[in-house]
């Protein structure tokens, strides 16, 4: 039996024997993905609370309130005239925004100081606040324009500026501007990346003796084949969960990659092989499971922040840009997002090649360290 097959069977036998370790690769990812999927399943957030401060009490202000109530992204939770009370609702997190309708909104007279409808929105939870603010701006502006047109027809007074040329914005790869699709593409792979980092480090860590893999390396003969065999079940299960996640997003939730989902899956395989190789390097270098797991949570647990998926790192500090380019998840996210918009095969191949460097470099370094430990111990 080859070293690879021996290591594979030994790992499978361990997983069959150790229900805790098996649950880490089966029950835990299932729970994490079901909960994350459940969280996103409602589609883009709806019913975000809005307080209205109506200082006009006119037909025009009531029209604006009705227009806001018609938007399903937001929900009017109260109409009053006290700004302090409205801001308290924001601090209590009952409301994410306050719309102030000024007095004189509906009288149609020109004034020295132009009146303004103010939309105060909380930005401590930025994504929610910006979403509410955008929807409110659209609803209020559309209603004011409609009222102005009606008044212009009646009184011949133009209330609004001349129409601007519209800017037609198209979002490639996410035509519905779905927060669910965007976060779904990020959360599933990030959760699995961290999970595989933990399970592979813990798996190889079982072979440590006095902080060294020397005895294990001598026993297996060919450490490279033994590493591949040992990590194969982890990578395969990681792939299985990733594919199920992507299929849920596409088949069940109806989103689609403009490129090829299979190319994303290939990228996922490279990500998990790279993750396993980094785990091998961490265990070989630290000689401790706990320290390796701590290092894993640092590099894989915050890899999403460094991937540039929310805030691009152009303009970021040098350390962040360099570290981001070293982390495997950065390149997987780029590869995956590229398939969302459908890039050329050559661009995919470039990203895949960069991703493939991780297992080659980290795995190569791990083998060098392990062989040196074995030589010293001999």
């Amino acid at each position, binding site marked *: 039996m080859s070293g690879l097959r021996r290591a594979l069977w030994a790992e499978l036998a361990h997983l069959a024997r150790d229900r*805790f370790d098996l649950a*880490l690769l089966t029950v*835990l990812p299932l729970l994490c993905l079901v*909960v*994350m999927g*459940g*969280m996103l399943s409602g589609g883009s957030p709806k019913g*975000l609370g809005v307080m209205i401060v109506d200082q006009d009490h006119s037909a025009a202000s009531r029209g604006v309130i009705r227009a806001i109530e018609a938007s399903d992204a937001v929900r009017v939770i109260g109409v009053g005239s006290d700004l302090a009370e409205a801001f*308290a609702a924001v*601090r*209590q997190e009952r409301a994410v925004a306050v719309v102030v309708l000024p007095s004189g909104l509906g009288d*149609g007279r020109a004034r020295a100081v*132009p*009146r303004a*409808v*103010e939309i105060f929105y*909380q930005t*401590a*939870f930025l*994504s929610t*606040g910006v979403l509410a*603010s955008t929807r409110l701006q659209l609803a209020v502006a559309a209603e*004011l324009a409609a009222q102005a047109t009606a008044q212009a027809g009646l009184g011949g007074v133009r*209330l609004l*500026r001349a129409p*601007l*040329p519209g*800017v*037609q*914005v*198209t979002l*490639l*790869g996410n035509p519905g*501007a779905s927060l669910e*699709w*965007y*976060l779904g593409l990020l959360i599933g792979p990030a*959760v699995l990346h*961290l999970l595989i980092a*933990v399970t592979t480090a*813990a798996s190889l*860590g079982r072979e440590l003796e006095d902080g060294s893999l020397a005895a294990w390396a001598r026993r297996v003969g060919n450490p490279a084949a033994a590493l591949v065999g040992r990590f194969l079940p982890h990578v395969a299960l990681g792939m299985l969960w990733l594919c199920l996640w992507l299929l849920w997003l596409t088949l069940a939730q109806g989103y689609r990659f403009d490129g090829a989902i299979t190319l994303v899956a290939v990228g996922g395989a490279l990500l998990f092989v790279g993750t396993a190789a980094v785990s091998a390097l961490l265990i070989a270098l630290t000689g401790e499971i706990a320290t390796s797991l*701590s290092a894993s949570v*640092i590099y894989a647990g*915050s890899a999403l922040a460094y991937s540039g998926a*929310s*805030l*691009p*790192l*152009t303009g*970021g500090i040098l*350390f962040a840009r360099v*570290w981001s380019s070293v982390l495997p998840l950065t390149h997987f996210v*780029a590869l995956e*997002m*590229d398939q969302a*918009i*459908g*890039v050329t095969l*050559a661009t995919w191949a470039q990203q895949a090649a960069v991703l493939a460097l991780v297992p080659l470099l980290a795995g190569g370094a791990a083998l060098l360290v392990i062989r040196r430990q074995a030589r010293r111990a001999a």
Partner: protein
Amino acid sequence: MSFRRAFEGALLEILRTRDLVAVAVISVLFYAFYYPAPYAHQVVERLPIAVVDADHSALSRGILQQLAAAPEVTIAAEVPDMAAATALARTRKVEGILLLPQGLASGVASARPGAGIALWLNGAYLLRAEGVGKSIASAIATVVQQRLAGLSLGQGVPQISVIPRPLFNTTEGYRDYVFPAVANVILEQTLLFAVARLIAERRRKGLWVRGGRAFAGVWAGCATIGTLAGGLYFGLVFWVQDIPHGGNLPALALVVPLFAATVSALGMLVGSLVRSGDDALKLLIPTSIPFVFLSGFAWPLVAMPLWVQALAWTIPVTPATHLFVPLNQMGASLGEVRGALAVLVAQLACFGGLAALRLARRGAIGRGAAV
């Protein structure tokens, strides 16, 4: 064992054991600077876009000049047609395409509909696309309004504008948004890892001593470490990083120890259920990312199905996020966050009671425990 001996023993073990000090102290210090680093520049900068100027008018040149001055985007290429621009997008040389169509200037001058400008952005990266989209639209609106003013269109008539005003994080900076929320997860997870590992290792080695006073002493020791970490973040780290902070210090002084005690109780409970310290880490580390999102900072809690909301509220970081962010960033009063506070207190009672059942009762039998 006396309360005091148990308290000192727990503190000293956390500070003297390499694995524990690495997680409970060094990681906390490290994350304070490591996590905010990719968000340090706060806003989108220099995102490359391609421009197709088919109008070649003073107006289209004005728009391009305005865009060149906008920090959010950089014009990476001006190409003659959409085919060339699309090729750049498909090879990821640019993140967006702006088309200024032929007849734009005359369309604006005559207020003719259909003179539309088109903008394509990479929507897979939704948050940045929305930000950049707004910035480009605003640059265009500025130039067009100036142009209209020059043409005496729209002058002399009253205007009702709609003005968005951000509250609390007034620059809408990413670091000021992400880090105060993720800091709660960092504080929770590092303390959970350390406490669960401490208890699990003591049980594995047969060193756990049962009894109410010993249990309370260890619990207080762990909560002290958590309280100091919370104080460090909300005091020094937020100040050094210039993150909005200190909105309601007296309330924070009350709530931080409650949070630390709740997380410590959960850590003790987990530590009483697993075989070893390594198993505690293996179980808890992968929950870190789901906990970040369940706290409701990126995806609002009200948009989650009820069963997910219910689950989220059983994790200490969820009430913590909805206590610490309002208290620190929004200057909320304790009364205004009473709902989240009640949940945290309920968790404290629940986790504390369960942990005591597992670890304090003298007759209780736990696998691997010294009874």
